[in-house]
């Protein structure tokens, strides 16, 4: 049985932990609103971009075309872009990214492919360093939160494009947490190269895709559009991941605050009981002392 003083200290320490978690929860909630707005406002751009690419791609036969669209015909070397958070204390957010990365890498390696990793965000990079560290081609930090700029995505996109053109990999995939709602995030794999094309979507209201005029020519247009699409998809992934991170942290901290509250209640009960027990014991001693006289 811990002494009354021990219990008191324990309760105070849990109380201050609870203050911290509830403050973190509120900070995450405030930031989440902005990040969510950013993610939602970024969607029209990337959606339209993929629509246009989809309709352009529908005209090509899927074999001849820019390599960024149809690939270079091989799939021996894979690059995975893994987007996690720089900070922890956000529930299963980083864990699920790490887990999917690990399964994906072993799946590809079992199929005899070479895999390289480009890690964005510190947590997953740290978690996987021991087992997969030699596959890292780069680690990037500080690209998240509410101030993600398109320039960041652009520079990662340029790295990827150059690597692809230099033949360092044949297929490029992004792993990130997609923001569904404040309580749900979905770990998602999106293929960047060859471009993932949503078919069956018509570009024009009139559905007259074949009658489109192109300026400059179709293939030139595609050539300038595809690198841009890579940056756009990356930017979208980073925005979604930032919003998911904050949502995950908010939920995790909410749970932690509630757990701390439960723990305080339980400890207070024990504290009161033992205080009562001490008083009763002292009373019995006094009474039996008085009777003995």
């Amino acid at each position, binding site marked *: 049985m811990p002494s009354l003083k021990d219990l008191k200290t324990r309760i105070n320490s849990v109380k201050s932990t609870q203050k911290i978690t509830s403050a973190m929860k509120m900070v995450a909630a405030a930031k989440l609103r902005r990040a969510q707005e950013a993610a939602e406002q970024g969607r029209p751009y*990337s959606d339209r971009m993929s629509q246009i690419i989809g309709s352009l791609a529908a005209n090509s036969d899927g074999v001849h075309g820019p390599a960024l669209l149809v690939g270079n015909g091989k799939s021996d070397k894979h690059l995975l872009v893994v987007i996690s958070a720089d900070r922890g204390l956000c529930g299963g957010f980083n864990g699920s990214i790490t887990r999917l990365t690990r399964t994906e890498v072993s799946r590809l390696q079992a199929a005899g492919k070479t895999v390289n990793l480009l890690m964005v965000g510190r947590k997953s990079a740290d978690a996987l360093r021991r087992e997969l560290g030699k596959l890292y081609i780069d680690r990037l930090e500080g690209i998240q939160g509410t101030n993600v700029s398109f320039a960041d995505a652009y520079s990662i996109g340029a790295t990827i494009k150059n690597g692809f053109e230099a033949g360092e990999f044949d297929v490029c995939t992004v792993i990130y947490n997609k923001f569904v709602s404040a309580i749900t995030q979905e770990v998602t794999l999106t293929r960047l190269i060859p471009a993932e094309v949503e078919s069956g979507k018509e*570009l024009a209201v009139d559905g007259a895709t074949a009658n489109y005029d192109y*300026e400059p020519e179709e293939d030139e*247009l595609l050539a300038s559009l595809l690198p841009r699409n890579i940056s756009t998809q990356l930017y979208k992934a980073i925005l979604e991941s930032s919003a998911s991170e904050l949502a995950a942290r908010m939920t995790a901290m909410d749970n932690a605050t509630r757990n701390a509250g439960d723990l305080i209640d339980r400890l207070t009960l024990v504290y009161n009981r033992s205080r009562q027990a001490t008083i009763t014991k002292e009373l019995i001693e006094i009474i039996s002392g008085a009777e003995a006289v």
Partner: protein
Amino acid sequence: MMAETTQLELVTPAKIMVQKAAEMVVAPGVEGLFGVLPRHAPMLADLARGVIEVHENGKIVNRYMIDGGLADVTPKSITILAERAEDLNAADAADLNVRADNASEAEAEFLRAVAASL
């Protein structure tokens, strides 16, 4: 009677910047400026760095500068995807000149020309 209009949308990765009806939109294509009127033939065009002009009642009402982009033209609408866009009604010539001093050569030249036209 209200003249026929085409629906202009200017979208950047950060947000939808502009959504409005316009009588004519002039955009900087890589092969030269082109104007888009209502009932324009469907077209996809690559855009260069330049200024988009929105015309209403025969006058320019809004100007936006973009750093390259893509225009999707249909008979009823023109959608412009641009990575960077700025409303020139809110821009300040002195500020643009300062930015021009810090920018690369080609961009500086463009920024000064825009500043001079304000």
